[in-house]
């Protein structure tokens, strides 16, 4: 149950978007987050929406997965919309209701802002749905590798991240096991006042931490005997390869950015 929460976000597939280099996806997402703010009229928002929808269709992710990802922030979108509708006092009054005046500019502004929000969430969700966490890690390591010049331990950070990813299910399993063991001894995790429940958590956290440290030590030994001595002379099994599709997508994004600049009012 808990496993699916974190690991289950990735939807396995072999679509064009899945096969893109994680670096492309990371850079595209980064740029997209900025160019979304260029849009300020119907044309530009329309163009952005088309582009985003095209990406989504190409990813061949079932729509239900996307909706599941959107559910938690749906009320935030609705809230921003209402806030803009109620607080903007520009343009013509569209209707009045119990002394609340709603202006047409307000509706437009509200729609644009919540659409911008929605587009941002869809694109970032698309990244996590089509890229495994380990690919994201590899992509980050490769993109940040110039920082090595300034003695930033990029390789070590990436390795730390991939080991944490690998141990999430193991520690989840362990948490469940300890919880059951403590429940069998009469610890109540789910009812009672908050302070009581916090106290019950120590019965879970202390054994969990002890075992995590023990695991870390054993893992360090296992890594050392398999010859791990830091990143300097290592080769990489997972090599990232920049393909033509990657170049094409980067070009498309550049075109989109230019079009947005030209069309915005």
């Amino acid at each position: 149950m808990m496993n699916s929460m974190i690991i289950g976000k990735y939807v396995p597939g072999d679509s064009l978007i899945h096969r893109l280099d994680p670096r492309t996806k990371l850079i595209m997402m980064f740029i997209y987050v900025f160019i979304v703010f260029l849009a300020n009229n119907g044309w530009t928002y329309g163009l952005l929406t088309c582009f985003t929808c095209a990406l989504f269709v190409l990813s061949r992710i079932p729509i239900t997965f996307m909706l599941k990802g959107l559910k938690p922030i749906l009320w935030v979108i609705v809230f921003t919309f209402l806030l803009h509708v109620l607080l903007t006092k520009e343009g013509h009054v569209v209707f009045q209701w119990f002394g609340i005046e709603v202006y047409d500019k307000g509706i437009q502004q509200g729609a644009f802002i919540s659409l911008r929000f929605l587009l941002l969430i869809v694109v970032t969700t698309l990244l996590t749905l089509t890229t495994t966490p380990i690919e994201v890690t590899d992509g980050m390591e490769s993109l940040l590798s110039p920082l090595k010049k300034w003695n930033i331990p990029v390789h070590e950070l990436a390795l730390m991240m991939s080991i944490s990813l690998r141990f999430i299910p193991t520690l989840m399993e362990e948490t469940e096991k300890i919880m059951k063991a403590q429940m069998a001894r009469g610890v109540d995790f789910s009812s009672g006042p908050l302070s009581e429940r916090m106290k019950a958590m120590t019965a879970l956290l202390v054994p969990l931490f002890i075992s995590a440290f023990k695991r870390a030590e054993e893992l360090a030994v296992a890594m050392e005997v398999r010859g791990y001595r830091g990143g300097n002379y290592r080769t990489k099994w997972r090599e990232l390869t920049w393909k033509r599709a990657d170049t094409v997508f980067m070009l498309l994004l550049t075109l989109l950015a230019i079009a947005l600049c030209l069309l915005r009012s």
Partner: protein
Amino acid sequence: MEVVVRVEDVSFQYANENIYALQNISFQVYKGEWVTIVGHNGSGKSTLAKLLIGLLPSTSGTIHVCGIPLNEETVWDVRKRLGIVFQNPDNQFVGTTVQDDVAFGLENQGIQKDEMSKRINEALKKVKMEDFIHHEPHRLSGGQKQRVAIASAIALQPNVIILDEATSMLDPSGKKEVLHVMESLRREHHMTVISITHDLNEVAKADRVLVMNKGRIVLEGTPAHIFSYGSKLEQMGLDLPFSLQLSQQLKQKHIPLTMDHLNMEGLVSELWTLYSAMSNTVTK
């Protein structure tokens, strides 16, 4: 015969403890041999494993691996010649998938990608895990994880494989899987194996057995020779294999068994031949 591991007069004392964890240990392991080191908890056998892979420095004495003396400068060289599989299947799985885990050691040695992919496939085939190459560790059983650990070790083409209680956390079927894989490796690829265990059931497979107690090697010999000490082993806190216990107790009940039985098959076959011989005499 070629000596792969030579341990000479090694002693070890943990800091803050006045008794020696290991005292004057000497032994040799020859190429292609399967040596089992058996001992009760606290007999010093795990300390010995740590010394062999250079995780602890010996207080006195020397260790040679393939002729290289083990010291601070040569420790990485020595580790290239040793592969070790530890007790806990989870805590030695470094990669996020099976192939990544086998690749980890190869990456550390700076091996090129083509060669890596060849060695990963070969190693996984040897432990019969080639169908699981993309699996994450949480989708594998304990026995499967240990087989991947063995693959990770043999992908580095070591001269010796050390099994440090590698089966002690596994269920009976996992134990069987791992031992089966090790046996086939030794049969088909003439792997030199040092197996460290407290389980006398694993001893029967060895060419030679060293029994440790209180930091010393107290007995050495073939499995049959070791088991002939029976009650002495039990005094050292070791459990005799069930077949051996049963055959000894049957002998106490004056059932004329001729041998000490190290495995079930031998005992069963002697029992049924005996039984049919007895029923023949009764009917006559």
